[in-house]
C-alpha cells in the first residue's frame, strides 16, 4: 500500500521526544495550546466531528462520551486514562507511553479542559514498570515546564495529573472495575447504570478513555476534524490506528495504518507468515474477539467490517496462527486466561469461565465426548449477555468461534482420543538459531 504518514507513532525513533523540549520541537503541545483558546464545548464538538472512536475495545465515540459529562466547574470531575493494557495480544499502548509520553499527557490535558476536569489519573497496569517510570518523568517535566499544575500553559486552568499503578488484574481494564481499583478496592465492575459519566471516580462524573484514544486528540486539534475524517474507511471508521501484530508472522510488532487497512496488507507489511507457512486463523482484536478463518484474509480491519464478519476489532490486537496450530489448544489457553481473570463476583462468569476451561482442557487431552460442542455453546449462551460486565461476553467469543469455525478439529480430538497436533518443540524445530 501507499506510504502512510505516521501520526501516533511519529515520535517513535526520536528518543528526544521523551523530553518536554524534544517533544515540543516536533509540534508538541500545540494542540493543547489551541484547545485552551477554544471553548471547552468547541473542543468536544471538534472531537465529535472527527468521528474518533474509542481505541480500547468498545469503539464508542469519544466526543459523545465527553459530552455526557455534566457542564460547569462547581463539582469535581475526573479523567481516568485507561492504560491497563491487558488484553492478550495487545501492546500498542505500552509503545505510546514508552516512546511518546508527552503525546498522551497532551491528549489527557485537552480532554480535561474539554470536560472541566481538574484531576487526571493515568491508571497503568502494574507490570508496566518501564512505562510508569517514563510517564512519571514526563509528568515531572510537564509540571516544571508549566504544562501541568496551577495554570496550564499560563491559561489559569488548574490541572493535576498522576500515574496510578495497578497490581495485576485484567478486569481493571473494564471501566468500572478500574474505578473500583483506583478507589482502593478489589477491581470488581459496578452495576450500570449509573454510568461513570454520572457517577464515576470518587462519586464524581468521570471520563475514561484508552491511551491510544487520547493520543489521537492533539492531532485532531492541530490538524482539524476534517483531516482526521479523511483517513479511514468511511464516516464511522476514521483516523489512524495502531495494530499490534503477534503470533506466527515474520516481524511481529505495532504498526500504524489508516483504520480499515485489510488484513492481507497488514500481513504483507510485517513480512508475511513465519517461515512462509500457510495462514490458518487469526484473531482480529485481542483475546476476546472471535477467531476468523484464513478465508477472511481480505477483511478490512475497521470496527464495522470486523463486526459484520462476526468478530470485533476490539483493541486491534491481531494474533496470527499458522497451519501447525491446534485451535482447541489455543482457545483452551484463552479460556484459562478468562477463568483466571474473572473477578468472581457474578455467577455466570465465575462458574461459566471455569467450566469452559475445564471442558476445553478435557477435549484437548482427548477426553471429549460427542455432546461437548453443544454443551460448550449452551454454557456460552448462558454467560453471554447475562454477566455483570463485558468479561463474560469476551470469554465466550473465542469458544463460540471455535465451535463455529473449527468443529472439525474438535471432532478430531474426540475421535483420536488425543490432540492430533504434535506438541511441537518450538525451539527444537530450528528457531533457536534463526529467531
Amino acid at each position, binding site marked *: 500500500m501507499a506510504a502512510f504518514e505516521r501520526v501516533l507513532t511519529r515520535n517513535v525513533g526520536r528518543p528526544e521526544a521523551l523530553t518536554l523540549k524534544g517533544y515540543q520541537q516536533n509540534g508538541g503541545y500545540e494542540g493543547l495550546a489551541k484547545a485552551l483558546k477554544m471553548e471547552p464545548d468547541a473542543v468536544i464538538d471538534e472531537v465529535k466531528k472527527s468521528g474518533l472512536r474509542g481505541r480500547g475495545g468498545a469503539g464508542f465515540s469519544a466526543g459523545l462520551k465527553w459530552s455526557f459529562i455534566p457542564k460547569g466547574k462547581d463539582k469535581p470531575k475526573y479523567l481516568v486514562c485507561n492504560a491497563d493494557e491487558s488484553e492478550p495480544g495487545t501492546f500498542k499502548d505500552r509503545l505510546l507511553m514508552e516512546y511518546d509520553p508527552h503525546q498522551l499527557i497532551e491528549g489527557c490535558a485537552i480532554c480535561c479542559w474539554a470536560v472541566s476536569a481538574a484531576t487526571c489519573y493515568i491508571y497503568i497496569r502494574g507490570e508496566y514498570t518501564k512505562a510508569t517510570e517514563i510517564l512519571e518523568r514526563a509528568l515531572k517535566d510537564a509540571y516544571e515546564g508549566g504544562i501541568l499544575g496551577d495554570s496550564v500553559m499560563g491559561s489559569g486552568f488548574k490541572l493535576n495529573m498522576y500515574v496510578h499503578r495497578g497490581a495485576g488484574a485484567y478486569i481493571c481494564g473494564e471501566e468500572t472495575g478500574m474505578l473500583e481499583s483506583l478507589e482502593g478496592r478489589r477491581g470488581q465492575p459496578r*452495576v450500570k447504570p449509573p454510568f461513570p459519566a454520572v457517577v464515576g471516580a470518587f462519586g464524581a462524573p468521570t471520563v475514561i478513555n484508552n491511551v491510544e484514544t487520547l493520543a489521537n486528540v492533539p492531532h485532531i486539534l492541530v490538524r482539524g476534524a476534517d483531516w482526521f475524517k479523511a483517513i479511514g474507511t468511511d464516516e464511522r471508521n476514521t483516523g489512524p490506528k495502531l495494530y499490534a501484530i503477534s503470533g506466527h508472522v515474520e516481524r511481529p510488532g505495532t504498526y500504524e495504518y489508516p483504520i480499515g487497512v485489510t488484513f492481507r496488507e497488514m500481513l504483507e507489511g510485517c513480512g508475511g507468515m513465519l517461515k512462509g507457512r500457510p495462514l490458518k486463523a487469526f484473531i482480529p482484536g485481542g483475546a476476546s474477539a472471535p477467531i476468523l478463518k484464513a478465508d477472511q484474509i481480505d477483511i478490512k480491519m475497521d470496527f464495522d467490517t470486523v463486526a459484520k464478519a462476526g468478530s470485533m476489532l476490539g483493541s486491534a490486537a491481531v494474533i496470527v496462527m499458522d497451519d501447525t496450530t491446534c485451535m482447541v489448544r489455543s482457545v483452551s489457553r484463552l479460556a484459562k486466561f478468562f477463568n483466571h481473570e474473572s473477578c*468472581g*463476583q457474578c*455467577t*455466570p462468569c*465465575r462458574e461459566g469461565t*471455569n*467450566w469452559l476451561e475445564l471442558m476445553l482442557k478435557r477435549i484437548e487431552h482427548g477426553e471429549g465426548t460427542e455432546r461437548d460442542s453443544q454443551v460448550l455453546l449452551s454454557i456460552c449462551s448462558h454467560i453471554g449477555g447475562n454477566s*455483570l460486565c463485558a468479561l463474560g461476553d469476551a470469554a465466550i467469543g473465542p469458544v463460540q468461534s471455535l465451535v463455529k469455525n473449527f468443529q472439525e478439529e474438535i471432532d478430531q480430538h474426540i475421535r483420536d482420543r488425543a490432540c492430533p497436533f504434535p506438541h511441537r518443540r518450538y525451539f527444537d524445530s530450528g528457531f533457536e538459531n534463526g529467531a
Partner: protein
Amino acid sequence: MPKVTINDRTVEVAAGTNLVDAAIQAGVQIPHYCYHPRLSVVGQCRMCLVKIDGMPKLQAGCSTQVMKDGMVVRTDVPEVEEAQKGMMEFFLINHPLDCPICDQAGECGLQDYSFKHGVPYSRFQYEDKRTYPGRERIPLGGNVVLNMNRCIQCTRCVRFTQEVAGTGELGFFNRGARAEIGTFPGKELNNPLATCVVDICPVGALTSTRFRFAERVWYLDKKPSICTGCEVGCNITMEHRRGDIKRYKPRYNVEVNDYWMCDYGRSTHERYKTTPRLTTPRVRTEGGNGNGHTPAIASTRIASSWKDALDTIHSRLQAAQGTGEIAFLGSAFLTCEEAYLFGKLADAAGSPHRSVPADVGPAWTIPRFERPPISGREQAPNRRGAELAGLAAGEGKTLTGEDLLHGDGAGQCEVLVVCDSDFGVGAYTPETVERLRQAKFLVVFGWADSPLAQVADIALPVSHHGEKDGTFVNVEWRVQRFERAFPPPGQTRAAVEALGDLLSRFDAAWANQSPGKVFDRLAGELPAFAGLSWHDLPATGAALNVPGALHRLSDQAAETSSEASS
C-alpha cells in the same frame, strides 16, 4: 408515583423502587440471592434477570429502578426462564449435592430455586467439583460456622459486616472461581450481631453454632414472638419442636429491629432448657414462718393443688392486713397484663409496696434503616409496660425492689409476693435469696424451680415466655403483642389466669381472666394505652401515648453518654 407492569400486573411504586421489590408488590416473585433490601445492590448473582420491553438484553431486577411510568417487565418468558436455568446450573456445578447431610436443607435457597427454576439433571459430569480443603467447617468466631464448599459467593455476609454491623470482619478474597469469603487470618467474626449473617446466607455456607444439627427445620413449629433479652423488644420467630425451643430468628419490623437481632437475644431461650422447671404448686408444711432462714428440706415441701395454694395465699393476705407490711415484688419480665393484675392484687391487699426491680447491663444496639439505632440497657423486655400497668413504685415511703433485694425490707414483711423473678434481678444469688426469705411468708410465682422458689412458703408454677400470650412495651414506648407458641407443662398455668383466680377471691368479678380481656381493660383505664385493643393491635405494634416519652428516652441517652464520658 410511577406505574410498572410486571407479568401483566400493574402496580404503582415509589420512584426508585427496584424491580425485585416492585414485583413483590405486584405479587410476582423474582428469584434472587445477592439482593437484600438493607444491603448495597451489587447485582452479582444474576438470578433476578428479567425481560424489559425495549431492552435488548435481560436486566438484573435488583439493579433496575422504576423511575417513570410505562416500564413493562416480564419474568415468565422463555429467555428469562432459560437464563434462570442457566444460573441454577452454574450454582450447582460446584455445590455439593449432599442435602441429606446439610443443615440448611429445608430452608435452602438453592433447593427452593432448583425446584422452581432449575433443571433436574447435571451436565457437569466429567469435571471435578471445586472444593476448599480444610475450609469445610471453620468457626468464624464463636457463633458462626463457615463451610466454604457450600458458598455461592453472594457476599451478603460480607456486605452485612461492612454496611450494617459496621465492623467489616468478613471479606471477599481471591478471584474468579477461587473467590471465597472469610476473615483476615487470626481475626474473628465476633460482633454482637454476628449470627445475622447466618439468617441472610441463602445456602448452607454459614450456619449457627448454636443451632446447627439441633433439629431438622421441617420439624420446627414457628410462632411470631418478641425477644425478652432486653428492652428493645426485637420481633422474633420462636421456632420449637413440641415445646422445646430450638432457636430465635429475627422477624422484620421496620419500627423496631428491622431485619436484625443480636446474638445475646438469640441465646436467651437456652435458660428454659438449662433451668429446672417448677410444674406443680408447692407449699411448705412446717417452719419457714419464723424470722430466720430455714434450710430447704425436701420433705417439708409438698405438692399442693392450685385451689389450696391460692386459698392459703388469700387468707394470709387477709390476715396480714393491719398486722404488718405486705410487699409485691414484680419483674420487668412480666407482661403488661400480668403486671396489671399483680398491681390489682396489691390494691386488693391494701398494699402500697410494689415495684419492678431494675437490672441495667450493657447496651444492646440494633442498627436500623433510615432511623437512629435502637438500644436497650435493661436486661428484660417490659420494664416500661410493667410500671405503666400498675407496678411503678408508689409515692412516699414504700418498700422498693432495692429495699427488698439489697436492704432489710423483707424483714418488715408479713407477706412478700414475688412474681416471675426467676432471672434478671439476681434471684439466684444466695445473698438475695436470703434477704427475701426474711419475710414471714414468702410466695413465689415463677416458671423455674429457682433457689428462691425452693425456699418459698408457696411456689406456684406459671407459664414462661413461650407458653403465654401478652404484650410488652419496649424502650421506645411501643407496645407489641406476642402469642403462645405451645402449652405449658404439668399443672403450670398462665400467670394471668392464676392471678385472676387469686383476685377473684377478693372480688368475684375478677374470675376467668385472659390476656385479651385484661389488655382491653387496662387500655380502657390507662391513658397511655387509650384507643388500643388486643384484637386490633397491629402486627408491628403501636406507639403508646406517653407524654414526654421522647423526653424520657433522651434522658436515657444522656445518661448513657454521660456514663460513657465519665
